[in-house]
């Protein structure tokens, strides 16, 4: 049980996919126009992540090493299809809001990253909790970004009006929403501030002599598809090494 708690903590805080690893940036930017959309996307991804991690951990000794990536992709894509059909049937409003980004969960690097880095090497129960932790961490990140964008862009949080809006016609003074924040450019600005904040923390850590943090400095993309090979802080490699270190 201790191990399960540790995996949950790891996903939620220590290796939070949005704030620390900066993985899965496409859905992070695209669906966080409101807190509820971000939350829905996060929970959908969590469901896929938990199921795929579980199945991959179950099959980890059966899948041959050479074809493991295609096998993982088929497993992930199957669960995404299941989820897509379920959402279409039971939560049509969320289905419409997320649209194209539901099938695109397949190419979300968090899921394949966890399958490769954790589930393919560990037993079922820890893998399940690893998926749950990572998924909830992702949900947390998306919901937070969604809340910031919705608050600045519309004065609302989860659809509730927090700041009373100004109405020039009636002469009511109040908040004038910065609508650019719910549009595409706002997503880039929010993420830019987030990465800058993260850099700030890492610069401090680097000044204290933490080399690992300094290495990861100012990389906002996910390493799986990043063309910049000079970074040396490959997500796959580091998390595998971390796990090895823990075992030692």
């Amino acid at each position, binding site marked *: 049980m201790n191990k399960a708690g540790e995996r949950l903590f790891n996903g939620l805080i220590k290796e939070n996919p949005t704030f620390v690893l900066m993985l899965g*940036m*496409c*859905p992070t*930017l*695209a669906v966080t126009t409101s807190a509820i959309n971000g939350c829905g996307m996060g929970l959908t991804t969590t469901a896929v992540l938990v199921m795929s991690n579980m199945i991959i951990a179950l099959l980890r000794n059966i899948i041959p090493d050479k074809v493991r990536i*295609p096998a993982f*992709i*088929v497993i992930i*894509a*199957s669960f*995404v*299809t299941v989820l*897509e*059909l379920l959402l279409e049937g039971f939560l049509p409003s969320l289905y419409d809001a997320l649209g*194209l980004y539901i*099938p*695109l969960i*397949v*190419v979300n*690097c968090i899921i*394949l990253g966890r399958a490769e880095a954790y589930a393919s090497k560990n037993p079922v129960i820890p893998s399940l909790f690893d998926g749950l932790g990572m998924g909830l961490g992702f949900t947390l990140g998306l919901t937070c970004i969604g809340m910031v964008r919705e608050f600045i862009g519309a004065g609302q949080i989860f659809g509730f009006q927090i700041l009373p809006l100004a109405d020039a016609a009636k002469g009511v003074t109040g908040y004038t929403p910065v609508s*650019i924040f719910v*549009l*595409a*450019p*706002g*997503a*880039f*600005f929010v*993420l*830019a*501030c987030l*990465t*800058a*904040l993260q*850099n*700030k923390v890492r*610069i401090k850590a680097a000044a204290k002599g933490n080399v690992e943090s300094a290495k990861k*400095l*100012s*990389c*906002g*993309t*996910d390493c*799986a*598809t*990043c*063309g*910049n090979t000079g970074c040396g802080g490959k997500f796959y490699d580091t998390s595998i090494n971390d796990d090895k270190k823990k075992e030692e």
Partner: protein
Amino acid sequence: MKELLIIAIGSALVNNVVLSQFLGLCPFLGVSKKVDTAAGMGTAVIFVITLASAVTGAIYQFILTPLNITYLQTIVFILVIAALVQFVEMFLKKFMQPLYQALGVYLPLITTNCAVLGVALTNVQKSYGILTGVVNGFATAAGFTISIIILAGLREKMEYNDVPKAFQGMPIVLVTAGLMAIAFCGFSGLL
């Protein structure tokens, strides 16, 4: 013809794949340090997306629809795209050395590019035919190329700027991308 042109302009500029739909962000941010690598990546993306839209469109129309298994589209498309990229890489290596030299390094990076799957799924969602799908795919990829080259040009100039320490590297690139997205919002009056 007019319809195709409208779709092309719409996907290339108005609904730019990176700046308004956030697909293919990873290569957009990762491979935009220099203009010539950005151009190489852009060409490779145009090549793969155009080919992938043709192949997925044909598979959807001639295999999935007659067999009534269109709900399997996500699984089928992702596998077809992954196989296609591998195949293209092998084909170019064997028969078109110069092209392989130019695009080879970028091809493996494209497999996981969500723009490829995104275009294939958009084509199906909007029930485009094969020809319209190919045009849409080409235009989308052209839009990607335009924006990645612009960003690379800006980043080359930014090397000489005095950026606040915390904003150095990725954050300032994201701010730039945000400003580009505002500029691209201006295209929405085009159609």
